[in-house]
């Protein structure tokens, strides 16, 4: 015992963790294998008989989890892009070029004190960020990322999107009201008034598109835009696109319409009294909203997952299974040979380079090349990879646009905001609707 205890005492903290976790994992895996062997058939039958429910469960889990890396990426993008536009360097201490800065921000928020101010309504105060975040996640469920890659295909997908997306403001209002702070109250009411006003042009601006598309299912709307990029709805509904984008900016509380958290006027708006992870949820929800609104713009007007031109139908006549035993040799030998081949020029041509440095360089290069080739193969072979690439590229283009606007524009005033919505956007949206309807009637008849 004493020798065992002494050995344990000599271990460092990582060592202790490893020596605890590895046996635990071994036991658990053994148990899992045993369970699958014993009850696997019955469980599989259960899954088979409830496939829809299981699929929904998986989709919901994935959409919930996917928001976190998405928010991290957008936060990092915002930090870095605005810094570059300000002629600053931005975060560059944590990770390569500050890449994990937003993750560390998240951890910081997580470890901060979760504080409820005196006089706040604790129940509403606690639930407000949950409502906002939940609304954001729920809208993500109907977005088609790629062919066959979506949470749920509703035939009323767009309606569901607007209905659930509007719930987010309830969370802001709850947070603003329950904080027992006048700044919070002003922020909450501002965001409520703003979103009530901008929901109308936002919804009306897509009605023309709906007349053209004839469906509310986001999947089908995307499918109708396949082909060349001229088939995208942005070229058939330019006014609708502009109105939609402006209204979406206001809907997402982004500059120049970020009145609900106008830091120079009402401190932090509805989030003034929030701290810790409750603030973190508000913060995350904002960035998830940016992603969702960009994604929706892409889906509705910019062809969703479609490439801007019909991709030549390449199919790689390569079936790895047909190689048989040589496949194993290939898997075993190609990395080694590739690394050596790529390392050789460095070692031979640069006398100052040590052999092991050259090997490392070769290994990295080989991984880059192999990764690129694998990606190209996947892009050609699978529709959903190609679709996801285009979808994400377009979406992050719009995210960049949002960030760019944040880096450039000042904030509008509340009465100008309202006046703009009711005096300009709403008539323009109605005009767009009537023009589209008239065109459909004239052309269609």
């Amino acid at each position, binding site marked *: 015992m004493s020798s065992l205890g002494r050995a344990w005492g000599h271990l460092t903290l990582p060592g202790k963790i490893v020596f605890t976790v590895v046996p635990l994992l071994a036991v658990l895996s053994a148990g899992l294998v045993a369970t699958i062997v014993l009850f696997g058939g019955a469980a599989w039958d259960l899954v088979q008989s409830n496939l829809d429910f299981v699929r929904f469960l998986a989709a919901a889990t994935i959409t919930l989890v996917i928001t976190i890396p998405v928010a991290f990426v957008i936060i990092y993008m915002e930090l870095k892009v*605005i810094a570059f*536009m*300000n*002629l*600053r360097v931005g975060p560059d201490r944590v990770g390569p070029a500050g890449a994990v800065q937003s993750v560390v921000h998240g951890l910081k928020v997580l470890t901060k004190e979760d504080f409820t*101010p*005196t*006089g706040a*309504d604790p129940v509403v105060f606690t639930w407000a960020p949950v409502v906002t975040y939940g609304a954001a996640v729920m809208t993500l469920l109907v977005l088609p990322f790629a062919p066959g890659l979506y949470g749920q295909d509703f035939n009323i997908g767009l309606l569901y999107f607007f209905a659930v997306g509007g719930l987010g403001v309830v969370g802001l209002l709850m947070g603003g009201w329950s904080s*027992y*702070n*006048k*700044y919070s*109250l*002003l922020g909450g009411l*501002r965001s409520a008034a703003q979103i009530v006003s901008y929901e109308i042009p936002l919804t009306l601006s897509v009605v023309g598109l709906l007349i053209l598309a004839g469906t509310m299912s986001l999947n089908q709307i995307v499918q109708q835009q396949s082909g060349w990029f001229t088939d995208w709805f942005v070229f058939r509904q330019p006014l609708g696109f502009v109105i939609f984008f402006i209204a979406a900016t206001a809907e997402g509380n982004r*500059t*120049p319409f*970020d009145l609900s958290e*106008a*830091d*120079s*006027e*009402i*401190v932090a708006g509805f989030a003034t009294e929030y701290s810790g992870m409750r603030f973190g949820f508000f913060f995350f929800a904002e960035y998830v909203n940016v992603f969702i609104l960009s994604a929706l713009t892409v889906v509705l007007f910019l062809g969703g997952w479609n490439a801007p031109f019909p991709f030549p139908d390449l199919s790689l006549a390569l079936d790895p299974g047909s190689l048989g035993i040589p496949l194993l040799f290939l898997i075993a030998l190609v990395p080694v040979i590739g690394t050596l081949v790529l390392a050789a020029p460095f070692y031979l041509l640069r006398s100052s380079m040590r052999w092991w440095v050259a090997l490392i360089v070769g290994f990295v290069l080989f991984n880059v090349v192999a990764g690129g080739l694998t990606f190209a193969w996947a892009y050609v072979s699978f529709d959903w990879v190609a679709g996801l690439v285009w979808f994400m590229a377009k979406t992050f283009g719009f995210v960049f646009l949002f960030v760019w606007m*944040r*880096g*450039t*524009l*000042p*904030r*509008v*005033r*509340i*009465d*100008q905001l309202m006046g703009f919505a009711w005096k300009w956007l709403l008539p323009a949206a109605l005009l767009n609707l009537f023009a589209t309807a008239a065109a459909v009637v004239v052309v269609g008849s």
Partner: protein
Amino acid sequence: MTTKTGQHPSADDPRVIGQHPSADDPRFIGLHQSADDPRVMLDDGVGVYEPVPPYPPRTEREAEFYTLGEGEMFLNAGPHHPATHGVLRVVMKLDGERIVDLDPVLGYLHRGVEKLCENADLHQTIAYMDPLEYVSSLFCEWPAVMAYEKLLDVKVPPRAEYIRVLTGELNRISSHLLAMGFHALDLGGITPILYSFIERDEIVDLLASITGQRMLFNYFRIGGVNGDLNHDFMSRLGDWMSRAGSEVMSNTTLLNENEVFVRRNRGVGVMDRETALGMCWTGPNLRASGVPFDLRRAHPYSVYPELDFDIPTRSEGDSLARYLLRIDEVKQSLRIIDQCLHQMPDGPVTAKLPRLLRPRPGRAFAAVEGPRGEYGIYAISDGTDQPFRFRIHDPSFLHLQSFNVLAPGGLIADWMAINASLDPIMGGIDK
């Protein structure tokens, strides 16, 4: 959220006024019974700060201000509010978001500089001048040394006067750049302030190479300046002057034509000529209201009569005019610097003076045109080496008093635009 006069908002709120658990705890009986006990104070719902003062109203104005009408509420902005340019506190009476009335509360940065100066000898007081307007320190030193030179009847060498004008105009540009940047920041634009800071950093480095400090220069001396121009300064100044105009102007395209920015400022905080004069406004704010009053021309001092420059004026008198006028002034300052460099004579930079200065009994007032208006120093000497009375006249203080004229009727966001365009510095206001 409405309250009656002087009554705490949470007085009838069952959520807030709860007995502290320790009140019933037998272990705590007999403890925490004093009204001063922080734990007892904590029970009284102090978590929500109410701007109503705890004492009964002392003046009619106070009684009127702290009585709320139907649907009105108080909003306490500051002293830690992000847009109050320091530690200004403003109690606003709001109807929705519309400001009905407001009351600036000063004194959070009061250091008693005037009294400190009356207990220091003449040289030492110059160091106290710097932190008054920390973004334009030279303009606070300047009237002080001018007043002492009047008291002592000292003739300043012409080279020293030229150096004062040169460094002063550099400092004016840096101050205006900062004002323009913070104007945008208060309206929500985060980028212009950083562009301003890049140019300001250049100027501040330039001044540091001759004064030794980047912010609180302490450079002017009675009868001259502390040290001649050096090679480092001259080469970098020439470098900067060759591109300053284009850099500053290209940065202003971010705001000057920006619809959002223009709409936020046009017609906001309009001040007419007569009210501006009645409110004792000076400087760019007065000139934006159409009064071409500039001390450099109206009461010429130093070598300004020998220099050729214009006094830009605008007639609108709104926040936008005040912002644009600062850009015009930057251009004029660049002209003045150029002329200073060409006309600067050779010679000493300090008058010969004894180390311990004892002016004859008397008094003197000196004023200069700073980036915010007229900075003045009124000094009385009783024949000792310390000033008998030392009065600082600061323009920001007088601009601040017009909040009650400009802001009511506008929105909270308008108040940000007004405050930013008046460009007050709390260090000088609270003294």
